[in-house]
């Protein structure tokens, strides 16, 4: 939201600096005074939580890289060395490993919030697209990071995922094999592969940080969406970010940190797979290869499609389709609060994602395979059929005229409930009239 700068440099130095590099002005305007809709709920706190996650991952990661050795003969041992010998190594590694899961959990909730409240709609399309770019970078980064301990799951995850590129062999014979050998730096997953994965695992988080900066920039041009999906119309409908939302975000972050710490201290390996504590063996594939929980829905889609090439296309398509969501949704109404027809479809979509996650961990046969196919069908149908069609046939419910009106009617309802009677001057249960 464009707003007038309230920054007044006081000292001579502040003035001198402001004329040369107005960085203090930028921080004050964008992160202290920034006008934020007054009705944001706790689903809006995940942006701040995600920034915390990124910083935590980068800090613990830099420390881990001081002790880790990216060599196929030493990598596994160096992880055990971190766990047993390095001072606080166990804490830093568990925080990093659990941190990846917490990062994805927060990112998925952040995305479902965006879908529910229509935060991807004009004028926030670029903001949404940058978010999908961040998701792709997160997926690449976490996949590479998971390979580094060089345990059985690491090794076979790298083997299976890099082999996805060999599906190009069915488009141009030999192309896929060339790409895979280029990625491996050999004829099988080996030391060159581990080395380059480590190099890129160190690089990508900084690219994420760069795209996050663009994401926040794109957020600060139109300003936050809000639970009503109605634009801020008066300055009284917004509050300065600090202290109102810095406190709210801070409280949510504290609660999030409790869950985070509970995993780190009481169940650090709960989200991982025990097979990764077996050193990589290129001659034995584990009976049951499963990715980390946050990839399970995509893995289920890959396995649900009975063709190698189209399985891969389906898996990547599940993310690619997110890029065009702003143009697939045909309704002018942002928030699902006022979209009675789409709401059940949305919750069915959320359930589908959870079910796909469950099926991704199950063997691909019998009822599991059938369910995965049905769920994959609905996943794509939600975006490609439901979003375009429902927006055209749906009649939205009565929306409040403004954020203020919405807050006032909530307030009236609350008072009526407290007094157990009808508030003076307000119609009883207006929605039942």
């Amino acid at each position, binding site marked *: 939201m464009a707003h007038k700068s309230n920054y007044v440099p006081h000292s001579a130095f502040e003035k001198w600096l402001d004329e040369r590099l107005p960085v203090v002005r930028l921080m004050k305007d964008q992160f202290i005074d920034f006008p934020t809709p007054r009705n944001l709920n706790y689903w809006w706190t995940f942006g701040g939580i995600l920034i915390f996650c990124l910083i935590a991952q980068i800090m613990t990661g830099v420390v881990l890289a001081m002790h880790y050795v990216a060599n196929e003969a030493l990598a596994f041992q160096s992880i055990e060395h971190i766990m047993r010998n390095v001072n606080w190594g166990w804490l830093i590694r568990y925080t990093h490993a659990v941190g990846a899961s917490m990062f994805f959990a927060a990112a998925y909730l952040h995305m479902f919030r965006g879908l529910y409240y229509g935060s991807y709609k004009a004028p926030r399309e670029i903001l949404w697209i940058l978010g999908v770019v961040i998701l792709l970078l997160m997926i690449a980064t976490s996949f590479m990071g998971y390979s580094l301990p060089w345990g059985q799951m690491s090794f*076979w995850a790298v*083997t*299976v*995922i*890099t*082999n*996805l590129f*060999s599906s190009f*062999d*069915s488009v141009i014979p030999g192309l896929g094999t060339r790409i895979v*050998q*280029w*990625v*491996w*730096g*050999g*004829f*099988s997953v*080996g030391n*060159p592969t581990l080395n*380059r994965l480590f190099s890129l695992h160190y690089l990508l988080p900084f690219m994420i940080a760069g795209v996050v900066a663009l994401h926040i920039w794109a957020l600060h041009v139109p300003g936050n969406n809000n639970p009503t999906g109605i634009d801020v119309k008066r300055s009284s409908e917004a509050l300065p970010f600090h202290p109102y939302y810095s406190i709210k975000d801070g409280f949510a972050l504290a609660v999030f940190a409790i869950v985070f710490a509970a995993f780190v201290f009481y169940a650090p390996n709960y989200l991982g797979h025990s097979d990764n504590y077996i050193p990589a063996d*290129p*001659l*034995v*594939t*584990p*009976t*049951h*290869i499963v990715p980390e929980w946050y990839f399970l829905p995509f893995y289920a889609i890959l*396995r649900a499609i*009975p*063709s*190698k090439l189209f*399985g891969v296309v389906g898996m990547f398509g599940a993310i690619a389709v997110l890029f065009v969501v702003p143009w697939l949704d045909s309704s002018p109404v942002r928030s699902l609060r006022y979209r009675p027809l789409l709401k059940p479809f949305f919750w069915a979509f959320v359930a589908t994602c959870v079910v796909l996650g469950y099926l991704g961990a199950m*063997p*691909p*046969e019998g009822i599991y395979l059938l369910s995965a196919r049905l769920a994959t069908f609905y996943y794509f149908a939600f975006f490609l059929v439901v979003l375009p069609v429902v927006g055209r046939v749906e009649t939205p419910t009565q929306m409040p005229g403004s954020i203020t009106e919405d807050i006032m009617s909530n307030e009236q309802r609350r008072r009526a409930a407290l007094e157990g009677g009808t508030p003076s001057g307000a119609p009883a249960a207006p929605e039942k009239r």
Partner: protein
Amino acid sequence: MANPNSTVDAVDDTDRRDFITVAAGAFAAIGLGPLVWPMLDQMNPDASALALGSVEIDLSPIAVGQAITIMWRGKPIFIRNRAEGEIQAAETTQISALPDRFARNENLSEDAPAVDRNRAGEGHENWLVVIGICTHLGCIPRGQRVGDSKGEFGGWFCPCHGSHYDTAGRIRKGPAPRNMEVPPYTFLSDTRIKIG
């Protein structure tokens, strides 16, 4: 600098500038190409990976029905001494029953059909030599050890995504698109084989 009063000069100048812009851009692209290529090509298998030539194996300790796994170029090679029934099962399979109808044998031409004699060597029908990597996503199929599941066709079974291979290492059921590959190999004697 162009004379602002002379329109003729200005037009000429624009044409020249277009040419210079395009020429400079083209030269920058030509210069960039040779710089980008080493950055990409450095990721390809290096000289030490390419140098991992060949291995020789003594087959005499492998009894009928047994199989061994050896490493060649970082890949597992399955060598199975097939029993009579297994050979017969592979030979009697109709080509029309195969999802992949090519032999995928590096010792033969690319369009050789996937009949059993193109998978195992002539005169050495009992020896099947294949690269033991599932052609779906690169897992190692089971079926080498005695207690392993050999799948529905008595060959190998890949536990990752459920591909079944027959006793000639050909894909029969599941998501894998191709038969397991036969590496280049030669028999040095009746009990000695060289791979690579």
